C-alpha cells in the first residue's frame, strides 16, 4: 500500500500547476476597431480617437494601436461634421469646424477605414444639467451647516471664498441640481487641481506603495441622484487643496459602459474572484469602445488638512 501511495504522490508532484502566461489568454480578438468619443453638452464637438485592439500577449503601444487614414464624420440632423486626422497624433481625428454639442440631440458617428470596414454608433445627448446649491451638511443631523459659493457666483474665485474652505472629513458635501433629467444615471467625478499638495490619508495599515497609488482624480460608478442631491464620499478625496467636483448626466451608451466596465467595478454587488471580468456593453456597430454623451456641471472648493 505504501508503495502505491509513493507512486501516486510522485506522479502528481510531476503535475505542476504553473504554466506560461500566454496560456491564460483566450481566443484572440486583435484588430477590432476601438472608438473613443465623449460628447459634452455645450462643449465643442470633441476629437475622435480611433485605435485597434492588440493581442494581449504582445507589447501594447499607442503607436502600434493607432488607426490612421480613416474617413470620419459626425452627423447631426442634416449637418455633417467631417473630421481630419491630427498629423501630430496618429489615430486622433479633429473636427473641421468648431460646433457646439447641443442638448437633447441625436448624433451619429460614421467611420470608414482604409480596408473598407465601417463603424457606426449614435448617441442622444441629455438635457442641460445645472447645480443650484453646494451645501456642507452636518454628519449626524444631515442638516446644512453652510452654503458654499458656486462658479456662477464667483467664477474661479470660489476656491478662495471663505465658505468654500472645508476641513478634511468634516461634514458631508452635497450638491443639488435644479431638476432631475430623464437619463439612466449620473456619474460623479472629483479632480484635485494641485500638483503637489499634501496627501491627507494617514492610515497605519497602508504601505508606502499603497499610498503612492492614490490619484488626484476619480469617478464613481453610475448613480441615481435622488431628489436632486449628490453627496461626495470622503474616500474620493485624498489630497489637500483645490478640488473640482463634477456631476455628469449621462446617456445610455455612457451608462451601459460604466455599469459593465470591469475596470470600473460596476456599481453593484459581487464582482469578486473574476466574476466581474465580463465584456462591457459597447453599443458600437462594427467595433468596440465608447461613443457617448453627457451634460455636466461642476462646483469648486478647497480642502484643508
Amino acid at each position: 500500500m505504501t508503495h502505491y501511495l509513493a507512486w501516486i504522490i510522485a506522479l502528481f508532484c510531476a503535475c505542476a500547476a504553473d504554466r506560461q502566461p500566454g496560456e491564460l489568454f483566450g481566443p484572440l480578438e486583435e484588430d477590432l476597431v476601438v472608438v473613443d468619443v465623449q460628447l459634452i453638452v455645450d462643449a465643442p464637438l470633441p476629437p475622435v480617437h480611433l485605435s485597434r485592439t492588440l493581442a494581449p500577449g504582445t507589447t501594447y503601444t499607442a503607436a502600434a494601436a493607432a488607426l490612421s487614414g480613416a474617413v470620419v464624420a459626425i452627423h447631426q440632423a442634416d449637418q455633417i461634421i467631417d473630421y481630419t486626422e491630427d498629423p501630430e497624433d496618429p489615430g486622433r481625428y479633429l473636427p473641421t469646424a468648431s460646433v457646439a454639442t447641443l442638448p437633447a440631440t441625436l448624433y451619429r458617428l460614421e467611420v470608414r477605414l482604409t480596408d473598407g470596414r465601417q463603424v457606426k454608433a449614435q448617441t442622444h445627448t441629455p438635457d442641460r444639467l445645472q447645480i443650484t446649491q453646494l451645501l456642507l451638511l452636518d454628519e449626524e443631523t444631515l442638516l446644512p451647516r453652510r452654503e458654499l459659493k458656486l462658479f456662477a457666483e464667483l467664477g474661479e474665485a470660489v476656491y478662495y471664498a471663505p465658505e468654500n474652505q472645508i476641513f478634511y472629513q468634516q461634514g458631508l458635501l452635497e450638491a443639488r441640481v435644479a431638476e432631475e433629467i430623464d437619463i439612466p444615471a449620473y456619474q460623479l467625478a472629483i479632480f484635485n487641481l494641485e500638483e503637489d499638495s499634501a496627501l491627507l490619508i494617514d492610515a497605519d495599515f497602508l504601505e508606502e506603495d499603497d499610498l503612492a497609488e492614490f490619484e488626484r482624480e476619480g469617478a464613481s460608478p453610475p448613480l441615481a441622484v435622488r431628489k436632486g442631491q449628490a453627496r461626495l464620499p470622503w474616500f474620493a478625496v485624498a489630497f489637500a487643496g483645490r478640488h473640482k467636483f463634477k456631476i455628469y448626466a449621462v446617456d445610455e451608451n455612457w451608462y451601459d459602459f460604466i455599469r459593465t466596465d470591469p475596470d470600473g467595478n460596476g456599481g453593484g454587488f459581487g464582482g469578486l474572484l473574476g466574476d466581474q471580468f465580463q465584456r462591457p456593453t459597447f453599443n458600437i456597430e462594427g467595433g468596440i469602445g465608447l461613443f457617448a454623451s453627457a451634460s455636466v456641471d461642476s462646483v469648486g472648493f478647497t480642502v484643508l488638512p
Partner: protein
Amino acid sequence: MPGTKLLYTALLAVFVPAILNAATLNGFIKDASDGESLPNTTIALPALKMGTLSNASGYYAITGLPPGRHVVVISHIGYRTQLDTLDLIADQALRWNINLSVESIRLQEETVIIADRLGEEFRQQTGFSVLQAQDMQQMPAVGESDLLRSLQLLPGIQAASDISSGLYVRGGGPDQTRILLDQVPLYNPSHAFGFFSTFNPDAIKDVSLYKGVYPAAYGGNLGALLDVQNREGNRQTLSGRGGLSLISGRLLLEGPIGTGAWMLSGRRTYLDPVLSAVRASGANVPSYYFYDFNGKFSQRLGPSDELVISTYFGQDVLDFDLDAETFFALNWGNRTLTGRWSHLFSPTLFGRFIAAFSTYESDTSLSFFDTPVLFDNSVRDLSFKADFDYYVQADHTIAAGLLLTDYKFTFRQTFNQRQQLDLNQEPWLMAAYVQDDWQATPLMHLRLGSRFSYFTAGQRLSLEPRFSLSYELQPGLRLKTGGGVYHQYLQLVTTEGFSGGDYWLPLDASVKPSRSYQTALGLDWEVSSRYRLSAETYYTDMDQLALLDNNTVADSEETRSTDLFVTDGTGYAAGLELFAERRLGRLRGWLGYTLGWTRRQFPELNRGRTFPPKYDRRHDISLNSSYRQSKWTWNLSLVYATGQAFTPAGARYTLRAPATGLFTDRALPADRNSARLLPYHRLDVGARRAFGLWGSEAEFYLQIFNLYSRRNEWFVQYDTDEPETDPKVVKMLPIVPTFGLDFKF
C-alpha cells in the same frame, strides 16, 4: 357511463384492502441503544413479497396481510438485521415496535457486518444518497469533518473551490439545492465564508440527498434537496460526545427526560485569542469567530402522539478595524425553531404537523476613509406544514400534505448616509402535494405525485407533476427512472468563489419564477451485500432563469426584480454518473465518476451566446476509502476534476475613462467562461486511532488535506499597468495538516 364505472373500479382497487379479514402490522422503529427513531428502515415479509419503509418519524405500517404465521425482516444500514416470526389473526391491527441494535464490529480477520440492504428509497428513487454521520466524520477534512464538504465527494456534486462548502449538484448552482434541517429551510448553511457548514457533525442523525428528481413532498428549488435530521437524544441514558480540533471545540449532551429525550449541542471556534495575539503584535488581522447551537426535546404523549421541539442558531462574526475611519464588520447567521407533533390517527393513517420559524440575517457594515456603507438582508420564514401518510394497502401508500409559508424579506443598502435600496417584501407561499407509492407488481414500483404551489408575489400558480419508477430486472439489478417539474421563487445573491454574507431575495411580479424539467434514468446493481454499482444519466432543462446583475445600479427607487436580475435565461445540465461502492468489510469506500455538461444562455449576457457556468465540469472523479485495522482507521480521498471555466482576456485596448478622461489600458474579456483553468486534483489522507480516555471512547486523528500540495488554480486576474499584459493566477490551498480528538461517553 363506462368511464365513471372504470373510475370507481380504480378507486376501489386503491382504497379498499384487497384481502378481506386482512391484518395490519404497524409500529415505530428505534435504535435499541438510545431510542432514536430510525427512518428509512426496511420492513419486509419476503414470503409475501410485501414490505415498506419507515417514514421520517420511524413509523411504518403494512396493511392487507393475510392471517397466519409470517417471517418479518427488518433491516437498516449499520444495524443488525432482525428476523422475527409473527402470528397474525384476521382483522388484527398489531402494534409492533421494533428496536434495532447497532451491529458490533468483530475485529478478526475480516470485519463483518451482517448484510443489510439499503433502504427502499435507494431502490425506488433516482439520484438518492444517504451519508452516515460516522462515515462523514472519518473523511479527511480541513480542520474538522464537515457534512457539505463530504457530500462534495459524491459523483454529480462539485465544489467551487477549496474554501467553499457550496453544493453544485448536477450542473446547478448552490441556490438550486434546498437545504433542510429538521424539515426547516436553512438559508445560509455556511460558516467561515463557506469553509465549514453550519451542521455540527455530532448532532447529525441522518442525511438524505436527492441529487435530482426529488419527490412531490418537497419543493421550492430547481435542482436538488438535502434533508438533514438531527439527533433526538438518548432515551436510555445520559451520554455525550464531542471533539477538539485546531479550529473549534464542540460538545453534545443528551439524555432521557419524562417519556422522551433531550439533546443539546454546541460548537465554537477558538481562533479569536490567537487572532487577538497576532493583532497585539501589530499585524492587521481581523477578529473572527463562529458558533452554533442545536437543541432538541421530545416527549411521547401517549401511544399515538409525540411532540418534538428543536432549535438551531448559529452566527458568524467578523470585525476588521483598520483605524477609526476604516473598518469592516460582517455578521450573518440562521435561527430556527420548530415544533412537530406526530399523531397516529389509526394504524394506517399517520400525521405530522409542523410549525417552523426560520430566520436568516446578514449585516455588512464598512467604512472606508469615513465613508460608511451598510448592507442589511434578512429573511423570515414562518411555516405551517401538515403531512399525512396513509397506508392504503401493502402495495399502496399515499402521502399528502399542505404548506403555508409567510415570508418577510428585507434588503437595505446605504451609502454615505443615504439609503440607496430599501426592499421589503412579504409574500406568501401556499403549497399542497399528493403522492402515491405503488408497488404495481412485485418487480415494479411506481411513485406518482404532484405538487401545487401559489406564490403571492406575482400571483404565480405552479403545477409540478413528479414521477419515479423502478423495475427489478433481476434480483439486485434495478432500472430506475424519474422526472418532474420544479419552480423556484427565491434567488440567492452570492459569489461562486466562497459564501459568506449571502443575500436572498424573492422574485416579484416583474420576473417569472425559474423553472426546470428534470429527467433521470439509471441502473442500480447490488452485486452483493458488499458491493453496489450504479450508472445514472440525467438531463435537466431550465428556463425563466434569473441571475443577479452584477452591473446593476443599486440606486433606484421602487427597485423591482427586473432591475436587479438578468432574466429570461435558459439552460441545461446533462450527465452520466458512475458509482462503485464497497460498503462492508475492513476496506470500505467508493469510486465515482461524472461526465457532465451544463450551459446557460441569457439575452443580456455574453452577447446572447451560450456559455458554461464556472462550475461546469466535463470530468469529475472521486475516490474515497477507509481501511480499518485493529484500533486504527486509515482514510484516503482522491479528487480529479476538469478545471473550472473562466473568462480570459482576448485582446488589449486603450480607452479614456468616462468623466475623468484618463487614458486607461484595458484587457478585453473574450466570451464568458470560454477558457479553462488547469485540472483540479487533490489527495487527502487521514488516520484515526481509537483509545480509552477515562473510561470513555476516544479517537485521535491526524488528517492531511492536499497531501502533495497541489496548488490548484482558483481564478485569474489581468494586470495592464505595464505594456505587457500580465495574467496572475490566484491559487487555492496548499497542504494543510490538522489533528484533533473526538470522544464519546
